[in-house]
């Protein structure tokens, strides 16, 4: 019984630590993601995204489409581009990590 309680305590502590870590990481993703969106990648010039305060009207309004809430979909677009949208990943405009971060950011905040 004591052993089970011990394991339970360890599990709870582990969950707590993981939760804190992922919470901090997620905060970083949101902050860095918005920076990449508005500055390095310049997504803001072409897209509406309320969370980032952007009002670009060349590409789709990211708050309008459910596709924008799908991280795999967004990442594919950022990586490969489409039409007038540059291939931010393939063309080396963003690092793989930056592609990942900005995609997660957009998928998290789009439509909210």
């Amino acid at each position: 019984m004591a052993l089970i309680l011990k394991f339970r305590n360890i599990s709870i502590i582990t969950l707590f630590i993981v939760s804190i870590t992922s919470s901090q990481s997620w905060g970083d993703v949101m902050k860095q993601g918005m920076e990449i969106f508005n500055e390095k990648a310049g997504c803001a010039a072409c897209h509406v995204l309320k969370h980032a305060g952007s009002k670009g009207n060349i590409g789709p309004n990211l708050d309008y489409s459910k596709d924008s809430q799908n991280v795999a979909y967004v990442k594919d677009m950022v990586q490969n581009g489409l039409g007038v949208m540059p291939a931010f990943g393939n063309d080396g405009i963003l690092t793989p990590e930056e592609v990942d971060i900005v995609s997660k950011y957009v998928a998290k905040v789009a439509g909210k």
Partner: protein
Amino acid sequence: MKKRKNNINPSRRKFLTGSATVAGVAAASALVPIKVSYANHTASDAKGLPGFIKWKKRSSLIIHSDKTMETHREAIGSSVITPIRHIYIRNNMPTMTDAQIGKKSQWKLKVEGVKNPKTFTLSQLQNLGRTTMATVLQCSGNGRGFFPHKPRGSQWETGAAACLIWTGCPVSAIIKDCGGLASGAKFLTATGADMPKQLNPKKALVERSIPIKAQKDAFVAWEVNGVNIPNSHGGPLRMVTPGYFGINNVKHVGKLAFTGKESSVKYMKSSYRISPIGKKGSQYPSCWEMPVKSWIVSPLKSAKSGNLVVSGVAMGGTKKVSNIKVSVDGGKSWKKAKFTGPDMGKFAWRRFVFETKLKPGSYKIVSKASAGGKSQPKLRMENRRGYAHNGWLDHGVNIKVS
């Protein structure tokens, strides 16, 4: 999620090549009964539509994004002509605003590659020559949603297509007024005036070149279905290239040039190329002439046993659609259907009906059109971006008859 079979026909590589001589087309007759909806009002069910198309009928549209919307399969109606409030929306550049366009009668069209280059205003074009023609306007990617490899881009099924009546000035009249073509003209190149100035023209300018032979039928239009072309459909002046995919019908057209080479911008050189999956490049065919195609419009899901009218549309691309067949057993046996409604020329689509009697059960209803000696293939031509789908199997409908 719908299941889609992976039906591959790799042998179909050259279906866009070759074209019969394009003869004149019958002008759309004012005598036929055509329902025309007007563009200059806000639709009562516009809720959820972006501001630039508040006048559209929301319930007729499938929304892919705020800039890409297709017509519900049944919302093309049973007339030949598609109501303007139902027409699909697909723009590569943002729709120009009234402020950007300015006084519409003073819209300018620059003409180059002729003996006497000129710039015309819209008013001048309206007094230079006039033609009225019905054409199918179809996005190159119409049917992309049927490709199992999920090509990137809007997942259009049948609704990125419409049959419309345009009025405008023939390109041939413009050429004549400019003293004829300069030597070496091989392409008709149209340029849109809608690119925002901050963008790089090489990457963002909508400029499309089509073979010079297309100038016989091409015109610049200011009217569609009886109204001035709305900004969202490329007004006040739009290139119309009968029989060619939608991208060649350049919106907000500001320049026509008769050129020796195809344009070198991205939208001509690398985009809209029909390449094998995994490959891309300007060596592959451009989305030019549309192939023969048809699809069922009704019924779409279910029907009562007994008498049943199956209806649909059939188009021939640059050739007159000559024959339409329907199968209710997934293509095992075919019967001839009949065309209905007015024949509005070879660039328009024809409505067809097939009258049958069905017992309760499940049916796969498909249609197969023929034009210029060619019939629709069973399978799509697999290609990277999911362009030019005209296979009959994917366009069929599964019906439960009770």
